[in-house]
Structure formats: C-alpha cells, structure tokens
C-alpha cells in the first residue's frame, strides 16, 4: 500500500543527519541498580529525543513500519518529534498501539522496526523504541491522557467479553471500544496486566506505568473485572447465553510452566520462573515481611534458560542479594533468545554466564532443600529443526556446584482450564487453542490470540494478534447485526 509521506519538520541537512550519533539511553548506575528494583533505563531527555528524531533520513519508501507487528506510523511520529510536538507524536502512535509506554520498554526493536531501518545499513538505526518510550512518557506527564485521541463513537449495543488482561486482551479492548462496543475485560488475578504485571519486573516496566495505561483504557469506557476466572467463575457458554455477550476474545497467555523432568526438581528452593517472578513482581516478595508473600533470598542462585524470562529472573535474584547469580544455558550466547540489551544489562550488574552447561540433577540436604546442582558441559553439534546448533553433552564432563536456589526458565506450556471447561474449542496436541489468522476458533463468536494460540512469544506479537482479532470481531459483530 502506498502511503503519503508525512510533512517534514526536520531542519537538519541530510548529510549532517548521518553525523549525529545514536543517542544513548541514560541508565541507573549498574552497581547501584543491582541492589534496587527501580527502573534501569531512565529515558531520553528532550534534547536527546529531538537529536535522535533528526537522524531519520525520511526514506522515500520507509521499511521501518513493515518491521512493526502493529504497523505504527513510525515516519509520521518521528517528524512530530522533530517539530517538538511530543503529545502529537504519542497520539500518532496510539492510532495503532494503545500501549506505547509499555512497548517502548519491552519490544525487541532490534529484531523489528530498528532491524530494517535504512540508516542501520551504513550507520546505526534510528532508536525508534527509545523515541516511542519518550513520547509516551511525555504524554503521560504533560498530555491529557487518552481523551484527546478519542471521540466516543455511537454505541453499537453489542457486548464483547475479553478473557485475560495481558497485552493481547488490552489491545483488543482498545480497538473495540473505539468501535462503540461495550467491552469488559475479565482477569483471574487481583491486578490487571497479565504477564506485564506478574512476569516483567519493576526494574524493566514500572507498575505505575502499566496502571496508567490500564486507567486510560478505563477512561475510554472499557470495564475491568478482576478475580474472575472464565471457565470456573463463569463459563464461556454462560457469558454468551446468560450474560448477553455477543463475542468473546480469549487472551489467556501461555500458562503452565515447563520443567526439565530431572531428579530433584520438586526440592524446596527450585522454582519455575513464573512462580519466582510472580512472587517478586505481583506479590512484591522483595518487600517481605512488609508484604506478606515470602521469597527465597539465595546466596548462590542459578537460572536455567537463555530467554528474556531467564534474564528477568537472574537480575531479580541478584537484586534480592545473591552473592552469585548465574545463567546456566545449554547453548552458547549466540543462540540465546534473550534481547541483547537484557544480556548486556545482566552482565553489567554482575550476573555470571555459564553457557554450554546443562543441569541433570538437583541435590538436597536432609530437609528437602536444594544444595547443589549436577551438570554436564555441552558442545554444539549439527543444527536442529529450530535451525540452531543442537547442544550435545561432552563425555566425562559432569560436575557438581553448590547452589541454594534454582529457577527453571525453559518456557511454558498451555493452560488446560479452557479445554477442561469448554471442550467445543479445538486445541492442538500442545494444548494451544487452534485459531485462524484472524483469531477465529472452532466455536462461533469466540476468538483467541497471543501466547495461548502461538505458544510463548513476545508482548508485541500478542498485541499484533489481538489487533487482527479485533478487526475480525468487529466484522463478526457487524454481520450479526445485519443478519
């Protein structure tokens, strides 16, 4: 699709734009931050943001938007930053992404918009993520919340239930409220945000930012119901037949944590990443006993896995006072699925990386608590079906190390709650809900998107799936009125 180029407000001559260095993200000092839970990244200054925006060379056919799962109008909002209309820039982003303050923080921009930025071919890409975060934060502080971007549409008289208040559900809610539907979000936990509240730590995504994003959806008219488990408190059938919901979106998230099925995994001190992070983030275990939920404060913690969740867990363990907090990963750093920024931050904070190591057993004391991990060293063999080189144990490499806490961060399976209570909805052999590209499930009027369909992925991919479903739900509702 051909788009019109946005009006240019960049006053810097083209040649000089390439001399401006990519603006560094101001950060909390590494030593200091490894002892607190305050946000690591402090955000660009006004001057930095404008400099960074001026680096954009305004390509005739920009590729950055293609790299964005929700197609934010990146060239347009960058020009508004050049104009120093920061609130306007945030508004522009919000046309396509209802949660810019969150995505500006947690999106893997280096493999999305920034990866395909033309500037990146010869120089460094424009720091699109940092700019997104800057204008979102600016508009939260100085703008007028959501109202300015939103004229209340006429009511359609139709009701949509959204199950789960994570990134997928919030994206659907934001799109459908703009269409005039009555939207209610049901959440099983006592706080809204799904993985954004229980999974992602305060030092990466402050809860206050999340609460503001949720509040702005509430201002737009979205209803939020907590402590409500669809499937148990009320079934999908009851929501539709008894409560009058015309359509349902399931954004349940990934759910059940995977374990390794090795001896000693149920010892005390061995956590799933979900449990460790939930105790710390949602339940604020790091403020025990001021907050009631206890959490191990380990001296020697190992975290098994190499994804973003593993990085969140290891950096949390460090902040809880571990003398040594290590990543144990069976491949090499090159294959790690975690974002570079997370790996880099973890290293700065003193996290140790034990790559090409795989635990095979956890050993206990006489009280049933973990005291050691038996591991094997690995080497990389032929590529497997994921395209990454397969880790193979090295003969005679077994060793034992002392640990007093283990966090298993090797991914999640799917939650069985919906398939237990709504057998009409088809699931695949991994228990994920089967849905077409637009999120339609095998049950009429029921849509699904995010990790429950795709398996564990990222916040922005879940939002992208949610937005596609929102279009399909809107069409479904319109057809329903017509019929």
């Amino acid at each position, binding site marked *: 699709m051909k788009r019109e180029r946005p009006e240019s407000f960049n006053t810097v001559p083209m040649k000089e734009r390439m001399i401006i260095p990519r603006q560094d993200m101001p950060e909390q000092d590494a030593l200091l931050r490894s002892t607190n839970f305050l946000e690591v990244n402090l955000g660009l200054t006004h001057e930095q943001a404008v400099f960074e925006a001026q680096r954009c060379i305004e390509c005739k056919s920009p590729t950055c938007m293609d790299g964005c799962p929700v197609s934010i109008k990146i060239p347009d909002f960058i020009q508004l930053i050049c104009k120093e209309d920061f609130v306007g820039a945030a508004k522009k982003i919000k046309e396509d992404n209802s949660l810019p303050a969150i995505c500006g923080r947690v999106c893997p921009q280096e493999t999305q918009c920034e990866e395909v930025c033309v500037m990146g071919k010869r120089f460094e890409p424009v720091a699109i993520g940092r700019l997104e975060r800057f204008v979102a934060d600016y508009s939260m502080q100085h703008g007028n919340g959501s109202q300015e971007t939103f004229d209340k549409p006429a009511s359609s008289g139709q009701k949509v239930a959204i199950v789960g208040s994570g990134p997928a559900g919030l994206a659907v809610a934001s799109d459908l409220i703009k269409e005039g539907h009555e939207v209610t979000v049901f959440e099983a936990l006592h706080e809204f945000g799904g993985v954004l509240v229980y999974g992602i730590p305060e030092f990466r995504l402050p809860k206050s930012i999340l609460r503001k994003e949720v509040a702005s959806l509430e201002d737009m008219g979205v209803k939020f119901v907590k402590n409500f488990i669809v499937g148990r408190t009320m079934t999908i059938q009851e929501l539709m037949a008894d409560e009058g919901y015309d359509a349902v979106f399931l954004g349940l998230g990934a759910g059940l944590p995977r374990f390794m099925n090795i001896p000693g995994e149920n010892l005390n001190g061995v956590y799933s990443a979900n449990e460790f992070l939930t105790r710390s983030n949602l339940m604020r275990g790091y403020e025990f006993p001021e907050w009631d939920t206890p959490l191990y404060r380990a001296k020697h913690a190992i975290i098994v896995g190499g994804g973003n969740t593993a990085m969140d867990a290891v950096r949390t363990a460090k902040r809880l006072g571990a003398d040594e907090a290590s990543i144990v990963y069976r491949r090499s750093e090159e294959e790690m699925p975690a974002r570079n920024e997370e790996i880099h931050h973890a290293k700065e904070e003193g996290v140790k990386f034990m790559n090409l190591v795989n635990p095979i057993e956890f050993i206990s004391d006489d*009280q049933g608590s973990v005291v050691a991990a038996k591991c094997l060293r690995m080497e990389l063999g032929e590529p497997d079906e994921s395209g990454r080189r397969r880790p193979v144990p090295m003969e005679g490499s077994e060793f034992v190390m002392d640990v007093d806490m283990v966090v298993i961060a090797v991914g999640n399976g799917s939650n069985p709650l919906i398939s*237990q209570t709504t057998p009409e909805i088809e699931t695949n052999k991994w228990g994920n809900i089967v849905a077409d590209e637009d999120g339609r499930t095998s049950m009429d009027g029921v849509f699904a998107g995010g990790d429950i369909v795709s398996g564990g992925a990222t916040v922005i991919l879940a939002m992208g799936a949610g937005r596609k479903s929102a279009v399909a739900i809107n069409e479904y509702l319109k057809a329903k009125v017509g019929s």
Partner: protein
Amino acid sequence: MYKIIKAEFIAPNVKSFILEAPHIAKKRQAGQFIILRVHDKGERIPITIADSNTEEGWINIIVQGLGKTSAHLNTLETGDYLQDLVGPLGLPTHIENWGTLVCMSGGVGTAEALPIAAAGKAAGNRVISIIGARNKDLIIAEDQMAEVVDEVRISTDDGSAGRHGLVTDVLQDLMDEGIKPDMIVAIGPLPMMAAVSNQTKEIGIPTMVSLNAIMVDGTGMCGACRATVGGKTVFVCVDGPEFDGHQVDFKELGSRQRMYKKQEEESHKCFLERQMKKMKAEQMKVEVTS
C-alpha cells in the same frame, strides 16, 4: 472488596466465615476451593469451600489460625471485607455409588469433608464419618455431619471424646466389626492423610485425599503447588486437589509445605507485635479517657 456476612468462632482458634460471593456460590461443587487475600499487601492463600447457598449468594469457609495470614483473617468480624476472593478453583470431587463410603477427617478437614459426605450420601452410598481431633473442644461440624451421614464416630488424641486414639484406630475398629469400606476419603492434616493412606494401602481400599499445597495464582500458572503422585509431577491447583492417596509422595509434600517455615514465623511474629502494639494503644486510650 468482598463482604463478610457473618464471622464466628466455632472452636478455639477456628473461625467460620460466611462470605458474599454469588458467582462462586452458584458454580461451586464439593471439593473445590477459593483463593483469598486479606489485605492489599497480603499473600494469596487457598481454602476449601465447606458450604454454599446459591439463592442467598454466599459461601462458607472454616479457618484455623495457624500462620500470619490465617491469624489475621481470624481477627476479621461480621461486616468486614476481604481484599480479594476468587474461585471456585480445582476439579470437583468425583462422586459415585461405591457402596460403603468412609469419610475420615481431622481438624478443620471435617468442614471440608462435609460436602463430600453429603454428595456421597446423595449418590446412594452408605456413609460413615470418622472425625478426629486433638481434644473434645477441637471437634467441629459433628452435628452437621450427623445430619447427612449414616453414622458418626469420633476419636480424640487425649480421650476427652469418643475413642481414645487416632482415626486410623477407629477404621480398624470398623473392620474388626466386619464393616468393609469400598471407598475412603481422607481430609485433614498431612500426617493424618499419610497415615490413613498407609493403612488402607495395606488392606487394599481405594483412598482419596485432598491435598493442601502452597499456592500463588491457583490457576496452573506458577507451579508452586506441585506434588509427586504416582511418580509424576502434578499441579495440585489444576490437576487436583484430590488424588489417589496410595500414589502420593507425602514426604516430599510435607517438606514442600515447610518451605517458608522460617519466613512464616518471622511474618507471624511481626503481625503479633503489631497486634500487641494496637492493643496497648487502645488500652492507653481507654485509660486516658476514663
């Protein structure tokens, strides 16, 4: 916020709460539980639902003040509010007509065994209840149990009521009298359920136990509540809470229940100190004003 319609002590340190919860009341079945938080910095704890009323929209839970959260909960009165309440969680009890069903319960477990005994009776079983307690004062729900089952037998550790001994002794008595149970349900403290399971495994009577594990979300997301049953790891919250007692690794579960013992003691101590301060402050006020 979730209203406490009625709160009253029914035994020393054991309080019964009627909670306003119309949705949960409508859906809950025997064997299911809720998760609650007492206050906005509180932990999430699971408690089995003892009773409910769909028309009046309430559920009943029985709480023994053991740790910080349950002790705090038991300071709440009629008209107070809970911070959070969610449910019903877990799979409902599987009930069928086995023939003779013996429900063995200890402590507050009796309140939790009550709906299962009633459902068992309704399914056509001959139901015998064996209630165990440390002493006479700690026996709860005996009258309600007597209303729904064919026979109630009591045992106390100190002999202050019923048979002097344990619930396992009463089961042995039954067998000696020639009564052969077809099914056993055991609900109570872990050592009691382990002892019953041991005993019935030897004599070959199928036994179902209701496990109480530490939980956080209660919906399968965190895995805090994992236990080993039949050599496999299960999540008590979504795979249970009821399991074949002969297959449960009670030793592991017991050690997992003590995982935060030190922290729980610390937390409980903080709570008691705060309560003492509050009481002293109130006393001072009374002294000043009088």
